[in-house]
């Protein structure tokens, strides 16, 4: 009978709802200044108006397009460069220092440079999302290759497997599990790249709206957009997790 009260999702939802209720009550009692901390109901109202008025969709579409394209290009680029570096020492010597440097810095600082090079359109957002994802995936592939289980390599060799069989049976699956391990982070990075790119300079997108909301001191709109971006990323995380479970069902 009381089983549901112990279930973590129910308890988490209850905790979140109580927090929102306290916030709402504090606002209504006049304890919070609505200019800085508008009540949840006001934020929900703004979100509803945005969605119902149709203003939201072109912005959401612009951000999603930049994020997805960046994710895809970043994955392809990261995988290709990672494999190239793992298979050819010369490529590794060339790429590794650059990648280590790019990995060490907050890569979003490249955003202004991409705007100068590529303009304020989609291209600069795509480039930022791509580089955020590509560096992450490069290391997943490169490390996945180097950290491959030596025992499995020897096993396949004693069964008569050559280089081609080793890559297919040992290296690719091993690298795949590493890449999938970074996949959720990559989805988050792709959105970061798109939104930050829009934030820096753009004429559309959620980052652009956010920038607009901030410059007009509209806290309700700012919070509404933050909540919206969170919801989108959580949704994508859930999709990524399903994909991960499907591809890694041997675990």
């Amino acid at each position, binding site marked *: 009978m009381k089983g549901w009260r112990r279930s973590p999702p129910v308890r988490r939802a209850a905790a979140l709802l109580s927090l929102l209720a306290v916030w709402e009550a504090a606002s209504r009692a006049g304890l919070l200044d609505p200019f800085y901390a508008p009540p949840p109901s006001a934020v929900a109202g703004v979100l509803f108006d945005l969605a119902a008025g149709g203003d939201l969709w072109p912005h959401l579409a612009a951000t999603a397009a930049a994020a997805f394209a960046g994710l895809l290009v970043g994955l392809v680029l990261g995988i290709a460069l990672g494999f190239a570096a793992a298979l050819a020492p010369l490529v590794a010597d060339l790429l590794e220092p650059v990648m280590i440097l790019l990995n060490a810095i907050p890569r979003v600082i490249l955003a202004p440079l991409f705007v100068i090079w590529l303009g304020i359109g989609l291209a600069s957002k795509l480039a930022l999302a791509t580089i955020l994802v590509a560096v992450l995936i490069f290391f997943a592939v490169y490390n996945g290759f180097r950290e491959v*289980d030596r*025992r*499995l390599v*020897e*096993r*396949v*060799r*004693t*069964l*008569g*497997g050559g280089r081609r*069989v080793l890559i297919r*049976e*040992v290296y690719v*699956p091993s690298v795949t*599990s590493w890449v999938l391990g970074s996949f959720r982070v990559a989805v988050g990075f792709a959105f970061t790249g798109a939104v930050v790119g829009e934030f820096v300079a753009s004429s559309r997108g959620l980052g652009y709206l956010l920038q607009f909301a901030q410059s007009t001191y509209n806290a309700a709109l700012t919070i509404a957009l933050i909540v919206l971006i969170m919801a989108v990323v959580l949704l994508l995380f859930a999709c990524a997790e399903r994909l991960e479970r499907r591809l890694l*069902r*041997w*675990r």
Partner: protein
Amino acid sequence: MLRISGLAVGYGGEPVLDGIDLEVAAGEFATLGGPSGSGKTSILRVVAGLLEPLRGTVELDVGSRDVGFLFQDDALLPWRTARQNVALGLRIRDVAQARADEQADGWLQMMGLAGYGDRYPGQLSGGQRKRVAIAQVLALRPRLLLMDEPFAALDAIVRTRITQELLEWVERERLTVLLVTHDLEEAISASDVVHVLGHGPRAAIRASHRVGIPRPRRVLEARGHPAFGPLLRRLWEDLAAERMPEPAPS
């Protein structure tokens, strides 16, 4: 079947083993015993072509495809099912998929794993994984079987059972075997000849003993054979003497 002469193995140019001469006749079950860290495994790795020796030669009467290697651990490809793992070697030898799967199922059945073909290694117990690993190697019908402490990680009951099953297969196929183990009782109960390796560095084969117990054997009965106890004592003495410092030349 297998002749090793003047073999030196080491890492970074420093030999762990030196001057290893070893001959395994066709159909013989030879065991290489010795303390841990004496480099026993390295000898098998050289024979299997996984390690380049510093010096010396290895001659085989069969091709490398006729050599099977049963490793100490039971590492199978975790992303492949038991059936796919067993079929892997067959697929490498260009056996068609359907036929390879069929043969793999046959081997799994023989290993007492009928119906486990679709399980992933992570869903099997240690003993079951070991059986899959054995099936994976035997499915290729090797003529020479190299085994590196294959049962070390198993509990006593499973270990005795699997050893017995493997011995039966060795008898049936007249397999030549080179087993590496630090377990002297296992060495005696399974093999025709036990070679004792000394301590490193530059360890060499210290003594070789024939096992006077007729084949085919049953693991548990071999331990009760009158020749078992005295030989075990001699092997212990060999190893104990090995721990003493070398006498100074007079």
